[in-house]
């Protein structure tokens, strides 16, 4: 049964192929049925595989499926193969499960879009690539998936390419990701030159013996992977593309830019855990980059007014938390948070999409208010999602965030402290959204009067995701965790390193502390945005320049423009004007001219006189004869 893992890839591939070839002829109904059905079939296969896999004893829970030999050149050979182990299967479950719900939701959300079939072809392509990424059994195949999701992301962000901002956002995402991809490619080369293999199992076996702890090669490889992960997972310094990516359709933001693709960086670091265990310094970097990103993105989210942008910065921030987890070696906690985050963030995005649907595209939370009266299902599911994001006790985000903070505490107290502050900020901004959009009084009466609940095809996925957001947390209860032992075969080395000295008392204390932090955040949001409405303005005034800095997102985009984009652009202009026109064009035109001149000269030989041609032939024959005779 495990050998049939390739079926998971076949279904979305088929879907993408059929829809892209015949989509417009099949009609919306067929496409709207086919695309989710394909993902559902993948999901079914993933569930079956998961059941099969987890019924095996722990030592056997890593299964390679060789598909075919991909390429072989000299002693370099790569197989296209799938690795089925707890980590990959859990990722596949999340991708296909959340992906299926979002597909269903999209059939409602995109219902009136003229490019409906194309959208689903892209979505299926994305699922295919994401599954390739998580199921690959070697770095090169993973890189294929890595690039593929980048492509799908680019296509989907720029889906409404008539809008210049959407087209620009797509390009920005692609180019910024490219920087990271470059790092991953270099990392793959370092691994190949060092270890002579790209298969995960072989690499992880050989790495400790060949490289050992703190070796310069393993440091290089992991730092390059970190660069790749910061690109894909939107961390400092490459996070700038994610907020802009909200130009894409909302289901895309939910699927790609919250639940799955952006977690690829976290997945890759977790997958490469044996390498990161050999490079503690890199792990340190990962953790600190993660926490810095979490804090900065969290503060930006506090001041944003566009609902999707708040969610985007919150995604960046939560990804930062996952980085902290994998950075301190708590890979299982990172993956745990990845799963819960996939549920509640997809839920929040789809909720935002539902609001947008009901309000005809309006996303400014300053114009909303009292939407709970008009959109009860959206409100309740959004409320649950926000609670899970904020880490309100007993919701999923609470447990996963706590697992991360506990591991961070064990690693370094300042790391924990910043994380805790960020958790507080998270609670504030998530309930700021809830209170401003759904509670209180309506601010824009006209907009409000037209608001309506979304169709069932959109609300049912919301409800299912809300159930997920409520319950997935219980997979990872402290010391009762199902996640840690389940993932253990994938993180053998890591499990012993950081979770060996589990301290239940400490963990419970921290649990209570983070619960209190979250509740305090919610309470502050309640005071500031419902009761005492001039409080935010006064805080903003009091902080003055800091407010301006945060409002402008720390001027990071402007900074990048100044130090990277503009110099590159003027350099490019110079190249185009001087070097290309003068040098390259000159050379090319010169060559063409010389060839043309030679042609006109040689042309004279073609007299059209057949007799002359025959004479030339005879001359050649005699010359050949002479050569034979002399030789």
């Amino acid at each position, binding site marked *: 049964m495990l050998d049939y893992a390739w079926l998971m890839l076949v279904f979305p591939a088929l879907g993408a192929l059929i829809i892209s070839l015949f989509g417009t002829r099949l009609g919306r109904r067929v496409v709207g049925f086919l695309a989710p059905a394909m993902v559902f079939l993948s999901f079914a296969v993933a569930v079956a595989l998961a059941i099969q896999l987890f019924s095996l004893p722990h030592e056997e829970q890593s299964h390679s499926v060789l598909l075919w030999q991909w390429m072989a050149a000299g002693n370099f050979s790569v197989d296209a193969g799938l690795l089925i182990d707890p980590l990959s299967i859990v990722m596949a479950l999340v991708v296909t499960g959340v992906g299926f719900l979002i597909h269903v939701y999209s059939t409602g959300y995109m219902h009136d879009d003229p490019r409906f079939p194309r959208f689903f072809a892209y979505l299926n392509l994305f699922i295919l690539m994401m599954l390739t990424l998580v199921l690959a059994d070697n770095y090169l195949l993973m890189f294929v998936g890595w690039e593929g999701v980048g492509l799908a992301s680019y296509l989907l962000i720029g889906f409404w390419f008539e809008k210049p901002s959407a087209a620009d956002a797509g390009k920005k995402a692609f180019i910024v990701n490219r920087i990271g991809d470059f790092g991953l490619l270099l990392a793959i080369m370092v691994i190949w030159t060092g270890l002579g293999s790209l298969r995960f199992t072989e690499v992880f076996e050989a790495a400790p013996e060949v490289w050992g702890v703190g070796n310069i090669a393993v440091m290089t490889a992991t730092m390059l992977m970190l660069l790749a992960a910061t690109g894909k997972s939107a961390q400092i310094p490459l996070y700038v593309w994610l907020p802009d990516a909200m130009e894409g359709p909302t289901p895309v933001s939910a699927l790609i830019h919250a639940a799955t693709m952006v977690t690829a960086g976290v997945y890759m670091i977790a997958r490469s855990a044996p390498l990161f265990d050999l490079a503690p310094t890199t792990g340190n970097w990962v953790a600190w980059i993660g926490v810095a990103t979490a804090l900065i993105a969290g503060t930006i989210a506090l001041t944003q007014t566009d609902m999707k942008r708040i969610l985007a910065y919150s995604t960046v921030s939560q990804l930062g938390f996952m980085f902290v987890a994998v950075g301190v070696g708590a890979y299982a906690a990172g993956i745990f948070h990845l799963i819960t985050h996939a549920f509640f963030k997809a839920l929040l995005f789809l909720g935002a999409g539902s609001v947008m649907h009901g309000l005809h595209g309006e996303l400014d939370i300053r114009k909303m208010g009292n939407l709970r009266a008009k959109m009860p299902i959206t409100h309740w599911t959004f409320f649950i999602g926000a609670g899970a994001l904020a880490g309100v006790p007993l919701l999923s985000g609470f447990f996963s965030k706590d697992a991360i903070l506990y591991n961070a505490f064990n690693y370094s107290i300042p790391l924990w402290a910043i994380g805790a502050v960020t958790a507080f900020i998270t609670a504030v901004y998530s309930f700021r959204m809830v209170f401003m959009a759904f509670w209180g009084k309506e601010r824009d009466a006209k907009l409000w009067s037209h608001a309506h609940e979304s169709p069932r095809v959109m609300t049912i996925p919301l409800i299912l995701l809300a159930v997920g957001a409520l319950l997935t947390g219980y997979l990872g209860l402290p010391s009762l965790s199902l996640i840690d032992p389940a993932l253990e075969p994938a993180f053998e080395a890591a499990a012993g390193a950081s979770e060996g000295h589990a301290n239940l008392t400490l963990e419970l204390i921290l649990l209570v502390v983070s619960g209190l932090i979250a509740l305090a955040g919610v309470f502050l949001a309640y005071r500031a945005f419902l009761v005492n409405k001039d409080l935010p303005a006064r805080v903003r005034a009091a902080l003055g320049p800091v407010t301006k800095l945060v409002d402008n997102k720390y001027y990071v985009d402007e900074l990048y423009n100044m130090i990277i984009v503009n110099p590159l652009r003027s350099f490019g202009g110079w190249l185009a004007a001087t070097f290309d026109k003068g040098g390259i064009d000159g050379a090319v035109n010169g060559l063409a001219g010389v060839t043309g001149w030679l042609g006109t000269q040689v*042309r*004279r*030989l*073609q*007299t*059209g*006189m*057949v*007799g002359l041609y*025959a*004479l030339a032939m*005879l001359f050649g024959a005699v010359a050949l004869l002479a050569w034979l005779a002399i030789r």
Partner: protein
Amino acid sequence: MVPTSYFLVLSAVLFVIGALGVLLRRNVLIIFMSVEMMLNAVNLTFAALAYHFLQIHGQIFVLMVMVVAAAEVAVGLAIVMSVIRHKDTTNIEDVNLLKG
């Protein structure tokens, strides 16, 4: 017993006469005949060497050349006919479509 080389020299002479015919004459038909003579000269070489080495394969080759020659003459003469019909000339110098 005639030495084989005599046959070969004879075929060389015939070949060169044919070649000169191709080069010196302007009439398409005569050029064509000269080409046939050149083919025949080569055939003679094959037959002579087949006899010399007692290898029947040389004669098979002659047969094949004959087949090709027959097809070539049929098509070639048809081309000549249509050229004459279009240009009203048999002079090879008036047919210079290949001029560059």
